[in-house]
């Protein structure tokens, strides 16, 4: 090493040749290496994102009652245990029920609010939008805590409507955002054209505005369903011991047991989520999803 470094310096001609020749040949080389590094980094990130999901599926199918790697076989016993468990089934149905009610409430309220903001010429609409999106920015656990304290003060217990109201509050921003995005993107002149052709404001609204807004409202509704179904921090304070949502039940189970039942429950919810994503892709297309 030490003999090479000084040795290569004195003869001037050779090093220049060596320095220029590869430089010419591999001129795109730094670019190509940068590109490779970029793709390699992104591949590692994708593995980081997806490996945990793959692991969950492996453990759901693994027959041993404890976490063992590499897996020793394939069995459906954890799925049987999950579907046979009254607690899990009750929680799954309750979660679906709450998510369905939340979706309806958040969609109706959020979509009408978005219409009012975009077409009602409200003063201070920027502030209204910021307010409507604020449940996203404030820690959701605070929404749960504040609602819990209010229900305690009002002495109403932990009613179902209280839980749905909490969920609606944290899912409304998604509906408002997707609906507003669609409302801002479509051409107001379509509405003006309809009115110029003699349509009444009401008819314009139902035959032009509403059909054009539908993809945004639908995307928001699906988002609201997913967020409500997976909602943890708000539910934490608002569920009552007898009726808990699936995430809470899974969490309580996880504190004591680490077996494949959680894996099976996870696979079931992953499948549910994928059905929702495919529904989203079929109805509004995944692309509109990102341009929020």
């Amino acid at each position, binding site marked *: 090493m030490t003999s090479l470094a000084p040795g290569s310096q004195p003869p001037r001609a050779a090093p220049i040749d060596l320095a220029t020749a590869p430089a010419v040949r591999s001129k795109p080389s*730094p670019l190509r290496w*940068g590109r490779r590094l970029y793709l390699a980094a*992104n591949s590692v990130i994708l593995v980081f*994102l*997806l*490996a*945990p*999901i793959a*692991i*969950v599926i492996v*453990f759901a199918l693994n027959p041993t009652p404890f*976490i063992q*790697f590499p897996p020793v076989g394939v069995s459906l016993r954890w799925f049987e245990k999950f579907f046979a468990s009254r607690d899990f089934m009750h929680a799954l149905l309750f979660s679906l029920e709450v998510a369905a009610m939340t979706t309806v409430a958040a969609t109706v*309220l*959020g979509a*009408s609010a978005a219409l*009012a903001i975009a077409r*009602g*010429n409200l*003063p201070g609409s920027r502030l*209204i939008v910021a307010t*409507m999106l*604020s449940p996203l*920015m*404030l*820690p959701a*656990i*605070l929404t749960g*805590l*504040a*609602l*819990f*304290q*209010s229900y*305690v*003060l009002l002495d109403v217990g932990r009613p179902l409507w209280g839980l749905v*109201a909490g969920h609606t*509050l944290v899912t409304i921003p998604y509906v408002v955002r997707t609906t507003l995005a669609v409302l801002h993107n479509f051409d107001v002149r379509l509405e003006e054209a309809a009115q110029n052709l003699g349509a009444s404001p009401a008819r314009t609204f139902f035959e032009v505005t509403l059909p054009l807004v539908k993809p945004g409202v639908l995307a928001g509704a699906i988002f609201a369903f*997913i967020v409500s179904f*997976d909602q*943890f*921090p708000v539910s*934490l*304070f608002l569920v009552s011991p007898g009726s808990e949502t699936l*995430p809470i039940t*899974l*969490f309580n189970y*996880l*504190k004591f047991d*680490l077996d494949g039942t*959680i894996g099976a429950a*996870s696979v079931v919810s*992953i499948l549910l989520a*994928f059905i*929702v*994503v495919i529904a989203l892709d079929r109805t509004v297309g*995944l692309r509109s*999803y*990102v341009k*929020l």
Partner: protein
Amino acid sequence: MPATGAPRVNSLALLILPSALLFALFFFLPIGLMAVMSVLTGNPVVMPNVGFTTKHYARMGNDSYYLEVIWTTIRIGLWTTLAALVIGYPLAHWMARIKSRTGHALLLMAVLAPMLTGIVVRTFAWMTLLSDKGVINQILTSLGLITKPLQLMYNETGIIIGLVHIYVPFMVLTLTGVIGRIDERLEQAAENLGASPWRAFLEVTLPLSLPGILAGSLLVFALAISAYVTPILLGGFQIMTLPILIYQQISANFNVGFAAALGMVLLIISLSLVVAYNHVLGLVSGQRELQ
């Protein structure tokens, strides 16, 4: 006041009322009540003579334990945000710049899949990966690289890994939108003028994506400091954060006043961040208008 010539408020504006009512009754009123509860000596419904007190805040300020909990929460939030940005940016850049539609759809699926999997499920996944007998330790042991299992969870590192995995999709989706709107020709122009792709990125794309970086970071930080499931399971009850402490005050001690005061601290941290964010965003966009 509407400017002259601005279109008049019409009947569609009335559609805001149901949401306004929901926000008033189930958001602003409860948070106001929480603020009031944090300075009361007790529950005004059960106790007839309640008075104002600052004892809940004094308890926090005088006990280094609570200050340590607040700092731990902020520290975990900061590390999570930083890691989510470092991990999320390349992916968001790739998603924004990829030409093939199929490629874009696949990447989007990869980002949305974990997001749709659920917080509890993903935390469970990380427990199976990071625990003493978890996948990572078993693989490293069987390869003969380690003899004693690495302590990957029940500490802050484990919590941060779990939180980054849960919140990185939010960062990616926020950044993708912003990077996608940056005109690619600006980068090409910089390269035509002799800048390396790296330098073109550093001096053109990165500064222009600053609003997205700020928005994504704010979102991830707000989510990370309010996380409950991941810190409790991956921290194994060893690490105390504000949300865990708040829930503990309610479930174990039913100390509603102190929980409210802790909630107010969390609220103030979040609100000051939103204010700082708007201020910085104002500076950033102001600079661009000058240029």
